[in-house]
């Protein structure tokens, strides 16, 4: 009994002591919260000030990691010139410039070298242009750029039809495909059973692969012929662009969302215009489900028709963009981790990892071309398919 009483007393004492600690902790926590808030505010203010300072004086010394980040962002975006490498100490870029074509009170054509990578303001017929963060803006003789609250330029942009890096890459790849396939086509012209010679012999199996593994199983033996030109073009264009993106030329065409959007829109248009009665019936009045469900499903099916090309667009864009960023990041190990690993170690690790990843990217290059073509043929196949069994059931 005594022990129980003693322990009860002890418990009361502990609770009493602890309660003061708790209340102290509470006030302490409140104080802490307040001070955290204050710190956050001041940090935000400092960051803002730093950002402003950065924009006003762009020649602030950047860290190695920031430089790498800038380089990757710059590579992923479109550009008005090809830059193969640059000498940072001298501020020199080695590459070639591309023509800029603007429509702004008449046609204005000049080489992008006149911008000197954004350092100079170009004057054409009394109108001034400035290259700022990869975009051309109208400006005055001093090259003033106005900003809105989020530091985006508010200057007007001229209508831009320039041969940018992506356009030039696309034209080059198209020419390459023409050269490759004209050779292949010529052999069949001379005789139905001729064997293609040289490089064309490597292309024939891939053409057959697209036909036998994608077009025929998905679209069907009777209808596939009509869609072969599109499927082949899209397959070889994406495959070649992906592969060229891995060369040091600096192509990043399939990693540009406007290009993949354009390809996806082509698939969408072809799907919609070759669709038969059954396809539209499945969208607006789904057979085989109760009437309230039919009404509910119609908007979702319409949405689904739009989401299909959307997912095509995002899949290709995201895969290539991610691949390029990661390869760049791994190459950057050589510069960023030089001190931590030693020059030799950094080069070794960076080289090993990036080589490994480039091999993976070759696989991805094929896989993305394959999946884009496969899904395109699948969507086309779904649009042209005959649903005899559905008709028989109802």
């Amino acid at each position, binding site marked *: 009994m005594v022990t129980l009483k003693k322990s009860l007393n002890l418990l009361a004492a502990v609770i009493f002591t602890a309660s003061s600690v708790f209340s102290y902790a509470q006030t302490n926590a409140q104080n802490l919260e307040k001070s955290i808030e204050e710190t956050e505010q001041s940090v935000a203010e400092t960051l803002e000030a730093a950002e402003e300072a950065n924009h006003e004086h762009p020649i602030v010394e950047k860290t190695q990691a920031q430089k790498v980040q800038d380089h990757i962002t710059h590579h992923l975006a479109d550009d008005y010139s090809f830059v193969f490498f640059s000498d940072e100490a001298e501020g020199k870029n080695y590459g070639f410039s591309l023509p800029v074509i603007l429509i702004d009170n008449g046609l204005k054509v000049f080489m992008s070298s006149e911008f000197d990578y954004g350092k100079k303001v170009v004057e054409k017929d009394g109108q001034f242009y400035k290259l700022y963060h990869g975009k051309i803006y109208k400006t005055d003789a001093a090259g003033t750029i106005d900003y809105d609250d989020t530091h985006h330029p508010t200057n007007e942009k001229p209508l831009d039809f320039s041969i940018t890096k992506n356009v030039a890459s696309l034209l080059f790849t198209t020419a390459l495909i023409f050269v490759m396939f004209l050779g292949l086509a010529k052999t069949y012209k001379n005789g139905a059973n001729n064997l293609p010679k040289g490089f064309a012999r490597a292309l024939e199996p891939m053409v057959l692969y697209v036909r036998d*593994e994608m077009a*025929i*199983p998905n679209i069907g033996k009777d209808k596939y012929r009509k869609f072969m030109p599109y499927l082949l073009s899209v397959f070889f264009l994406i495959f070649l662009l992906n592969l060229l993106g891995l060369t040091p030329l600096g192509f990043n065409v399939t990693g540009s969302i406007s290009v993949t959007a354009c390809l996806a829109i082509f698939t969408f248009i072809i799907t919609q215009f070759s669709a038969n009665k059954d396809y539209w019936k499945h969208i607006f009045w789904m057979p085989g*489900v109760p009437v309230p*469900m039919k009404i509910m499903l119609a908007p979702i099916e319409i*949405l689904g028709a739009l989401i299909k090309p*959307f*997912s095509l667009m995002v899949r290709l864009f995201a895969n290539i963009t991610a691949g390029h960023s990661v390869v760049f990041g791994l190459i950057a190990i050589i510069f960023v981790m030089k001190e931590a690993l030693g020059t030799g170690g950094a080069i070794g690790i960076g080289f090993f990892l990036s080589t490994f990843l480039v091999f993976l990217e070759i696989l991805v290059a094929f896989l993305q071309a394959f999946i884009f073509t496969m899904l395109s043929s699948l969507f086309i196949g*779904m649009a042209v398919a005959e649903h005899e069994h559905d008709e028989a059931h109802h």
Partner: protein
Amino acid sequence: MSGENQKKGGPNKWLTLITMPFQMGITIFLFHLFGEWLDEKYGIVNDIANKICTLLGVGLALYQVIRQVHQINKD
């Protein structure tokens, strides 16, 4: 035999479902937006319309998947 299966669209037929995640996500999100709009418009307390609509969206998205899988199995 597996080659024969492939010719008939064996494994390929499952590729139909590759856009399903996108479609489910967007369906649910749109229903959620619709519910939010309803709450705002009629001043419904506790976001009841939002909750009901989001759940309805989840249900419809699931229904779609099940219907498609059913269709694939039937072919």
